[in-house]
């Protein structure tokens, strides 16, 4: 099943590769991964989404917790959590499709045009997986998507609960 895992990591060379290696060594693919420093520059936060056998992923989590640079690791899958992802999409919009494009944007108030060039619009959108999917489907009916960049899902637990370093 789909699993979403949060990891606090010392912000160091090699640390990310070790985490990724835990999955690749078992032939497991990482579906999405977002990483960046937190409010503490020495600490990175990773959000990792993967699909696979629950027992195997449980074992990966346990073994990842042993990595020296790992500060904390938590499986958010069964916890009440919030997920969000940023997507930047480029589509071809000719004069004939401009009205449809504007209408589509109106249906998605969280979408923002961040670049306008001749015949091409670049739009930014944030939302959870389902929302991003719907948005992209809708946009795809207006014009041809020529490029797409997704940040990968980031997630936190809902409410006051935080992933704190031990």
């Amino acid at each position, binding site marked *: 099943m789909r699993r979403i895992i949060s990891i*606090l990591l*010392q*912000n*160091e*060379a*090699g*640390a990310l*590769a*070790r985490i990724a*290696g835990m999955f690749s*060594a078992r032939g497991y693919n990482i579906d999405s991964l977002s990483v960046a420093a937190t409010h503490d*520059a*020495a600490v990175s936060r990773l959000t990792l989404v993967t699909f696979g056998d629950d027992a195997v992923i449980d*074992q990966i989590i*346990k*073994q990842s*917790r*042993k*990595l*020296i*640079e*790992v*500060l*904390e690791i938590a499986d958010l899958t069964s916890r009440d959590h919030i997920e969000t992802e940023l997507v930047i999409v480029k589509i071809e919009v000719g004069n004939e499709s401009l009205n449809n494009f504007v209408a589509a944007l109106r249906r998605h108030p969280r979408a923002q045009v961040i670049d306008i060039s001749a015949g091409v619009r670049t739009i930014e959108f944030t939302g959870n997986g389902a929302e991003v999917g719907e948005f992209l489907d809708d946009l795809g009916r207006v014009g041809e998507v020529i490029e797409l960049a997704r940040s990968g899902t980031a997630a936190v637990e809902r409410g006051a609960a935080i992933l704190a*370093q*031990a």
Partner: protein
Amino acid sequence: MNAQLKPTPLATNDPNKHALAGRPMSGADIVVQVLADEGVEVVFGYSGGAILPVYDAVFRFNHAHKVGEREPLPLIVPANEQGAGFMAQGYARASGKVGVAIVTSGPGATNTVTPVRDAMADSIPLVVICGQVPTAAIGSDGFQEAPISNIMAACTKHVFLVTDASKLEATLRSAFEIARTGRPGPVVVDIPKDVQNTQLVFDGASRLPLPGYRARLRAIEDARLDDAACKTFFDALAQARRPLIYAGGGVIAGEAAVALRAFADGFGIPVVTTLMGIGAADTTQVLSLHMLGMHGTAFANYATEDCDFLIATGSRFDDRVAGVPAKFAAGARFLAHLDVDPAEIDKVKRVDWHHLGNLSRALERLRAYGQTAGFDPLGKGSYRDWHAHIVDLKKTYAMNYARDAAQIQPYAVIEEINKHTQGRAVIATGVGQHQMWAAQYFDFREPRLWLTSGSMGTMGFGLPAAIGAAFARRDLVVIDIDGDASIRMNLGELETVTTYNLPVKIVVLNNYGDGMVRQWQKLFFKGRFSASDKSLHKKDFVTTILSMCRA
């Protein structure tokens, strides 16, 4: 690595300050000083361009601190860096201290991958220091460059690539800490040549912060069995009539054999050990059942089948022991598991009760609790039938072989040696049938006498491991029981034995081939001995060793 987290230097007015604190030193000198401070007595390694500054520092250190003929940090040179890695392992396994190997970049470092992975698989504390091309050349396919931090990341407890010279000292000290604490393992420190040559100031105490690792370690070290946990354990044990301890390598690594024996003897609970746990119990004792598993004794395996309460201690239900987990110890109504590694709990088999913490302390605590609570199965005779059954199993299924065979039987050779060593010699092995015969037919009265590549099963382990052990236990006889094929893998190390005049005894059980492989081919491939028959080999082992003994 460690780009952000700054090492913590010791305050200058600290009374415990290192005598050399504040002294200017090169990176290479700092490497050697930290080795000395960590209590390293011997290092194993082969030199080369990228590690020359450290080799020079070792030379100068030994020259400056020589006591008579004795060097404080003898540097033992193998035939191949794989040998250095296994020598460091043999030293570590026999002594319980961290083994150290120092090698050059590229091929020197890659030659240690096998012993490093082997150390990881058997939880052996090692620090391997590798030279690396200068920082500016990393990633340029420089001469003798290999991506050691990438390669080793997958087979170590941790790897450091020191690109910031100011963190070299803290990194080295932390490498030893990581290698020896918690579940031990190998740590590789990759040091570019320019970092070895950088002029630095010695601190004497700096360490890396390692906040996550240390917090988890502390949690395990501080863990105590509370009364409720002890009560649950003994309530269940009181129901049992056939309890059994299944002891693994964790008992050896955790120096918990004394506590284990006191617990087992105090309540009359028989013990089986894994291949890695050999020596946890004294194999000459009545309630000691020797090794279980695929290559174990029949009586140990029957006892495991027959037990109704299993106490796994520093063992991990490995596939050579619990091939089919559901069928392993299927009669046990209660499984208890004591370990230091959270990742081992419920990994293979779900247990009814577990404790994560220092093994020795936990076993002491359980024994004291049981005694205070009046748990006295010996006094009450609760296990009388079970003990009789154990004695019976050991008699009925005693290890045996064709004693009247015309040819010398390998088992007879081991039995004969055992009469002399009486469970008090260090025994190293290769991998194969001879390894299992040694495990089965030798006695072991203490931990750290049995040196074998358990989890990786690396042929070529025996000879270099015996060499390393000779430096750890100068007081004991050290014997390498090897196979004709295994010994060939590191045959060059014969010369290391003679070069350093080491009192290592070598016994090759020559069955002209890969016996263990043939055993499987006989069982599963209708006796087609593909590539495992070495009867055409022309080597004469005796002349081989004599050729290494030029007067």
